[in-house]
């Protein structure tokens, strides 16, 4: 141990003056940021060309903790902001890093329309099954019959199947992992960052303070062990079958969709070229 210690590879991506962060002990968002930083390191993107856009919520704080060009936008509007960023400067790699409440609830329409348009952005959705920052209210991803602040007797609704939602709206890359699968998640994030078109990665993360405590599901270590037991890796699985309606259902993880399709700017340039001929100068290509 006489030699000098090596620096943490993730450290260069963090705003260390803001550490320790506000996330609770055992929160899965920190793990997902860890994987994301390692994925960025692995795929060797020029850091001046990488933008992180976050909405509001616990996961929305990611933009504030990453030492990259990061934007903290209004609630649910991370994807419209990212769309504008990408269309104004097509050289950028734009990553939307937000939570389930931000992307699926208030920003649900933006999610489906960005997927439909096939904007070339990467969307990372950290799904912790409730609204963490505001006190554990019911979210569109809360399991059926599980307790949240606003559903003290159990949630009567059924949750969104987010991979199916993204895939059916036209996303070209759809994957789901849990915070237990850190190595696989890092590899998938590398693929998603390099993929041209709308790529969507859902990360299931424990929310120990609100969701697990209220439902008496133990600590985040217990949920990580549960993820380990219950998850089944099925690459290319039919996204219709990967829903998480109830807590006890097996968690199907993997890369579900990986197709190639022209993205929004390709289609835009092609149509304008058809109409205007040589007068039109392709944008961003």
């Amino acid at each position: 141990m006489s030699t000098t210690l090596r620096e943490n590879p993730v450290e260069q991506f963090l705003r260390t003056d803001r550490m320790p962060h506000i996330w609770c002990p055992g929160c899965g968002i920190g793990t997902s940021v860890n994987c994301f930083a390692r994925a960025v390191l692995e795929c060797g993107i020029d850091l001046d060309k990488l933008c992180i856009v976050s909405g509001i919520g616990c996961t929305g704080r990611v933009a504030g903790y990453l030492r990259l060009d990061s934007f903290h936008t209004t609630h649910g509007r991370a994807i419209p902001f990212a769309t504008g960023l990408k269309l104004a400067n097509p050289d950028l790699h734009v990553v939307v890093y937000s939570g389930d409440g931000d992307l699926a609830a208030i920003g649900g329409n933006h999610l489906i329309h960005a997927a439909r348009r096939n904007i070339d952005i990467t969307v990372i959705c950290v799904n912790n099954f409730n609204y963490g920052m505001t006190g554990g209210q019911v979210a569109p991803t809360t399991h059926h019959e599980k307790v949240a602040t606003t559903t003290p007797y159990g949630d009567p609704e059924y949750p969104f199947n987010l991979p199916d939602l993204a895939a059916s709206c036209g996303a070209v890359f759809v994957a789901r992992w849990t915070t237990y699968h850190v190595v696989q998640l890092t590899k998938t994030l590398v693929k998603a960052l390099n993929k041209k078109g709308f790529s969507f990665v859902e990360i299931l993360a424990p929310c120990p303070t609100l969701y697990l405590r209220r439902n008496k599901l133990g600590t985040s270590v217990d949920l990580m062990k549960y993820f380990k037991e219950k998850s089944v890796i099925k690459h290319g699985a039919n996204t219709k079958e990967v829903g998480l309606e109830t807590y006890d259902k097996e968690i199907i993880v993997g890369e579900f969709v990986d197709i190639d399709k022209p993205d929004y700017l390709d289609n835009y340039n092609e149509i304008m070229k058809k109409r205007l001929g040589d007068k039109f100068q392709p944008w961003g290509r």
Partner: protein
Amino acid sequence: MAEAAAKKRKFRGVVVIKPERCKGCEICVSFCPTGAISMSTKFNSKGYHYPEFSNPDKCTGCGLCGMYCPDFAIYGYREKIEE
């Protein structure tokens, strides 16, 4: 036998811990494949127990603790043993 096995190793695992960042979630200790780290009985300034590198001989330097840690408080790497 154990000494012979220790001599054959060309790499050693190193784990670095930053106690002040730790919030004591115990994920690193629970998921360490070889049990090289354990929770310390000491407290950091916020009152959390933090992990300690208690069994350096067991560590393979896989770095999984660093990948799991939500607080960026621990990381591991593999170091070549110089003869």
